[in-house]
């Protein structure tokens, strides 16, 4: 995570000067985009399924208490334990308590944004438990002590050369800078951890209420390993991840991977229903489900309700002209990209996104790409509006826009002001444009020109043209 004490503007500028990052982002997002387009291109029923998926999300929220009650009852009926966390601190305490009671020393983690959100790894380390990330991308960034830069491709900002150097330094293994070789090394290192681990920690892509099933979607197999081998399984999920039935689940599975990576289905969809059953050789003895609030419940009736539909597929990152330029780290929080701004506001309060709410062109490409058609631009505009209403914008900006708004509502004043503006702009005009403005107005012209006020306005010309 880049340092939040640095203003977003500077974090973004830093990312823009990182030539490798820009190149990597461009290659990755372009590829994901093409794969997604092809996947839906060959799947005509996809558009209808997206509408159905959106409706299921909304319908589920309308009876969220009922579906969560069913989920809890069914998980418990199968011998699982359910815990309730309002804050990240509570969620961490719950996991630490389970770790203590089960005598856990080593925990393997399957990729989970919810655990990133609650900073679980640090807490585990403090408590003497070693957490090992097992998704290859997450493993790389854990070794590098960094944070994910993309929801589904956490290490896209690293070259294979950098990964080889990292493995040499951290694992004491000299290896070629070759993706296949590096992956094999990671397999060996992590296989050993999987077999020794006491606890498997996962998120949940979905949880099916009617059957009490936790659903994990992975490509590498880390989700299967973490739920099959260790003797304790802890799954941490946001309350909005519940879906009513297996029939509903299939609708989401049909569009999730297509949106994320362009696959028809990810390699492994793992459905777990409680701990190991009698007669079963493998699977955990204990299963714990942690239901996480962390700002979500407040949004059931809040302005960000629609963001609770999010499947965390990452499609909106890949199409976003801002994300594609600056990458995930510059956003500064767990969730980057267009949806990330909304989720940051949800988790950390609206004040945290007073700058980020402007890190969007409002082009709407995110809503087009979103498998459940979340209207991200609408909510970004509302966040900007409430930012102004709460006076979080600088007073100079507010004063200028207030004056401008007045001017626009008074035609007589506007007509008077036009020749004045022409006079005032004279020292700054180059050709028909203003490349640089003084004082705080200079912020505007830092990265673009302002068109000059025309020598004759339209209404002046209209007088001559009118027959």
């Amino acid at each position: 995570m880049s340092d939040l004490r640095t203003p977003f503007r500077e974090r973004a500028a830093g990312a823009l000067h990182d030539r490798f990052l820009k190149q990597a982002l461009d290659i990755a997002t372009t590829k994901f985009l093409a794969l997604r387009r092809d996947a839906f291109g060959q799947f005509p029923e996809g558009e209808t399924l997206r509408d159905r998926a959106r409706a299921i999300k909304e319908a589920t929220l309308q009876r969220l208490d009922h579906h969560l009650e069913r989920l809890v009852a069914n998980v418990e009926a199968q011998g699982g334990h359910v815990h309730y966390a309002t804050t990240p601190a509570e969620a961490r305490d719950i996991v630490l308590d389970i770790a203590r009671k089960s005598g856990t020393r080593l925990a393997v983690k399957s990729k989970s944004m919810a655990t990133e959100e609650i900073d679980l790894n640090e807490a585990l380390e403090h408590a003497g438990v070693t957490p090992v990330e097992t998704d290859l991308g997450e493993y790389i960034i854990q070794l590098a002590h960094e944070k994910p830069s993309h929801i589904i491709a956490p290490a896209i900002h690293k070259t294979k050369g950098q990964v080889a150097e990292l493995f040499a330094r951290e694992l004491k293994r000299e290896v070629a800078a070759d993706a296949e070789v590096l992956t094999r090394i990671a397999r060996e290192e992590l296989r050993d951890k999987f077999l020794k681990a006491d606890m498997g920690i996962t998120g949940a892509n979905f949880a099916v209420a009617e059957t009490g099933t936790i659903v994990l979607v992975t490509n590498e197999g880390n989700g299967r390993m973490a739920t099959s081998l260790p003797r304790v399984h802890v799954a941490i999920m946001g309350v909005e991840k519940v879906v009513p039935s297996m029939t509903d689940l299939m609708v989401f599975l049909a569009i999730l991977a297509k949106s994320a990576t362009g696959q028809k289905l990810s390699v492994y969809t793992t459905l777990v229903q409680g701990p190991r059953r009698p007669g079963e050789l493998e699977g955990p003895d204990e299963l714990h489900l942690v239901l996480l609030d962390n700002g979500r419940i407040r949004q059931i009736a809040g302005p960000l309700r629609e963001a609770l539909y999010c499947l965390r597929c990452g499609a909106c990152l890949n199409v976003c002209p801002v994300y594609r330029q600056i990458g995930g780290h510059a956003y500064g929080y767990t969730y980057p990209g267009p949806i990330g701004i909304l989720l940051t506001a949800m988790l950390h309060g609206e004040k945290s996104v007073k700058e980020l709410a402007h890190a969007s062109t409002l082009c709407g490409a995110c809503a087009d790409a979103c498998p459940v058609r979340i209207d991200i631009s609408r909510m970004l505009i509302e966040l900007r509006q409430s930012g102004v209403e709460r006076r979080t914008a600088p007073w100079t900006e507010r004063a200028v826009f207030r004056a401008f708004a007045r001017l626009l509502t008074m035609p007589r004043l506007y007509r008077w002001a036009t020749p004045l503006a022409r006079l005032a702009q004279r020292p700054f005009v180059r050709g028909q444009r203003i490349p640089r403005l003084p004082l705080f107005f200079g912020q505007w012209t830092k990265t673009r020109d302002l068109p000059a006020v025309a020598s004759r306005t339209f209404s002046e010309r209209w007088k001559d043209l009118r027959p």
Partner: protein
Amino acid sequence: MTQSGSTTKAAFFARIRDEMRKTPGLFAATTAPRPPAPRRLAETIRRELSERWPQTLERFRREFERVGGDFHRVATVADVPGLVARIARERGGRRVVTWHPTALGVDLTSGLAAQGLESLTMPAAGGGDGPERTALRDKIAAAEIGLTGADLAIAETGSLVLVSGGGRPRSTALLPPYHVAVFDREALVESLEQAGVFFEAWHEGPAEPGRGAAIHVITGPSRTADIELTLTRGVHGPKEVHAIFVDAPIRG
């Protein structure tokens, strides 16, 4: 049940209900309609497919190969050990772990032995206490080939569905580098939607004895593109998945 967090279930749900009361929601919406009698519907699907399974199989083959799977077809189950032996030999392996005959539908132990393979059959139920289970798991991890059945084969996506349980432990299809799944027309379904009907059916009424706690939908070999988007196979799971379709019903 332990209640270690400082939020109780009652308080947690009270807050959810408080918020729900404030809004009717964004628009009128319903969830997906569930089949009223999924078991019966699943049987109907199976019956209908028994007439046109060759097309479904062809679609499965195409999609399975597209996701990087190796497809094979044999006439009878007696041909399976020879094929498994060839797959093993070509990859320098000779240790095979297999599902228990009751789970697989057929006993291949002697057939595999006749082919010079060292086979280890999973116990029908349980696996003793902790240390015994660990020892068995280490043997699974040391094998080159995991031989399993498949409960469903989804044509639309080229996926194999494996339900865990007695005689069919989870890691047989996970730890060995080569996974070989044997199935017949009984397992074929056309689409994810049809697979959903079976998922509903499996949960209708009390669980069958011996059924395990996990369902795995497997779509090709384990893969990653996390380093410079280079597609690499066999990260944590198998690097190759072989599907052997048997023309004559396996259970005879």
